[in-house]
């Protein structure tokens, strides 16, 4: 019955190994050096990947109860609900198809105009549908873990979106899962443009709230409450024109040279389980081909200088003889 503190090995007064303080010092030094190695030298990424792959069975075991619950809930959805949802989706699909028809004609028109101008074509980015496994475990960061990993061809830096707008970017890839940093995370910045007037800016996650900030914009900047932010696409990661956020607060403090601008992301990260992971645009291959072209035909190049007037082409301006 007695479950006292266990003294089954008769307390050895002298054979207790190193003292507690010595152990603390040893392990503290060990973890400090680990932290330094991890944050400054990035040697430990492979080790981390290996261990996370080892954890995979444990992780799926931990996910099992909630998955089972979700599946049973989905199984018992009422007929009425399904019908309603179906109706709603059909209506949505109809509306979208109208938009899509216009988009197709606009796209062909756009590519035609671009070819007339001699500008480079916008490349299409492929997307993969992923599912959120769980939220990040660290309350200091805004992250989610998605069920697609390097086995499915996910690489670091990919943009992640949902039906409403940009969610974030892939920051760490494991074999069977990947970690997506949300745009509300303090570490993530995203180049944006204001839809109304085309003003470019960079939005940073706020960190504590689920908002994003637009710092370093002058106090007289033309931004109003309700303005919509879209991706500007000059980073070469996010496609142009995806919705990012809506401005909810613009404060101009006379003491500060910068305006205090806050926006709320439009993507509903809390609402869905599915999200789309866009593949990186093939900028590098485009550059390679552009450089080859430049090298092979310099004379043609001098006749049409606007052909090189694309932002992500390297500006190797050929010298006129």
């Amino acid at each position, binding site marked *: 019955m007695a479950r006292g503190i266990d003294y089954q090995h008769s307390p050895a007064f002298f054979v207790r190994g190193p003292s507690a303080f010595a152990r603390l010092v040893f392990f503290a030094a060990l973890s400090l050096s680990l932290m330094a190695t991890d944050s400054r030298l990035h040697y430990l990424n492979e080790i981390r990947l290996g261990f996370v792959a080892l954890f995979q069975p444990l992780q799926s075991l931990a996910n099992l109860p909630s998955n089972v619950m979700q599946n049973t809930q989905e199984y018992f959805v009422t007929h009425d609900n399904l019908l309603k949802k179906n109706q709603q989706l059909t209506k949505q699909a109809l509306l979208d198809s109208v938009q899509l028809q216009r988009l197709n004609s606009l796209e062909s028109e756009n590519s035609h105009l671009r070819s007339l101008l001699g500008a480079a074509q916008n490349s299409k980015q492929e997307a993969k549908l992923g599912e959120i496994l769980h939220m990040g475990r660290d309350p200091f960061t805004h*992250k989610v873990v998605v069920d697609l990993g390097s086995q499915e061809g996910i690489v670091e830096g990919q943009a992640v979106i949902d039906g409403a707008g940009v969610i974030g970017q892939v920051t760490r890839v494991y074999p069977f899962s990947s970690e997506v940093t949300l745009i509300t995370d303090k570490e993530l910045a995203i180049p944006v443009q204001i839809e109304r007037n085309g003003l470019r800016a960079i939005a940073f996650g706020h960190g504590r709230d689920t908002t994003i900030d637009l710092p370093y914009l002058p106090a007289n900047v033309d931004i109003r409450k309700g303005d919509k932010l879209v991706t500007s696409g000059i980073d070469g990661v996010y496609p142009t024109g995806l919705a990012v956020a809506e401005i909810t607060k613009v404060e101009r403090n006379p003491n500060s040279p910068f305006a205090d601008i806050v926006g709320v992301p439009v993507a509903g990260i809390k609402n869905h389980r599915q999200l789309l992971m866009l593949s990186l645009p093939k900028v590098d291959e485009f550059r390679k081909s552009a450089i080859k072209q430049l090298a092979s035909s310099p004379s043609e190049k001098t006749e049409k200088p606007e052909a090189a007037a694309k932002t992500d082409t390297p500006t190797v301006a050929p010298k006129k003889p």
Partner: protein
Amino acid sequence: MRIIRLKTIYLTLLAAFLCYLLPWSGAALVARPDFMLLALLYWILRAPQFTNIGTAWFAGVLIDLASGSLFGQNALAYAVTAFFAVTYQRRLVLFNIWQQSAYVFVLLILNQATLAVLKLFAGGESPGWSYFIPCVSGIILWQFVIFSSISIETHAKKA
């Protein structure tokens, strides 16, 4: 006295790790008690000859791997907490159950505070008071241990 096997300890720690790996989200994520630390403290206070600062450190490394945070952050916080747990472990016999839970509560807060300091140094944003909710939920969980049949018996409890 019941014999404690090393296997039992590691199975408990594994179970705590599984609890940690459950897909928590939203308010549950904020209020999630630190299962791993509670299991560690339990074994450090009850069977200090098996679990020590080293065990705590390795458990912390596991948590670091699973959470994707910087290597060694949780490990250091656990090691510091385990150090204070081990230092006053012998005095635990004199505590009554309320003193014991107060002691564990202080240890939980110490762990969160150490972790917060480490993350702030690593460049995190200060997380606000909700960051300390896991301590409260953790000590509530500890009450179940105290009033169950696996409680750590103290002399003061009998009196």
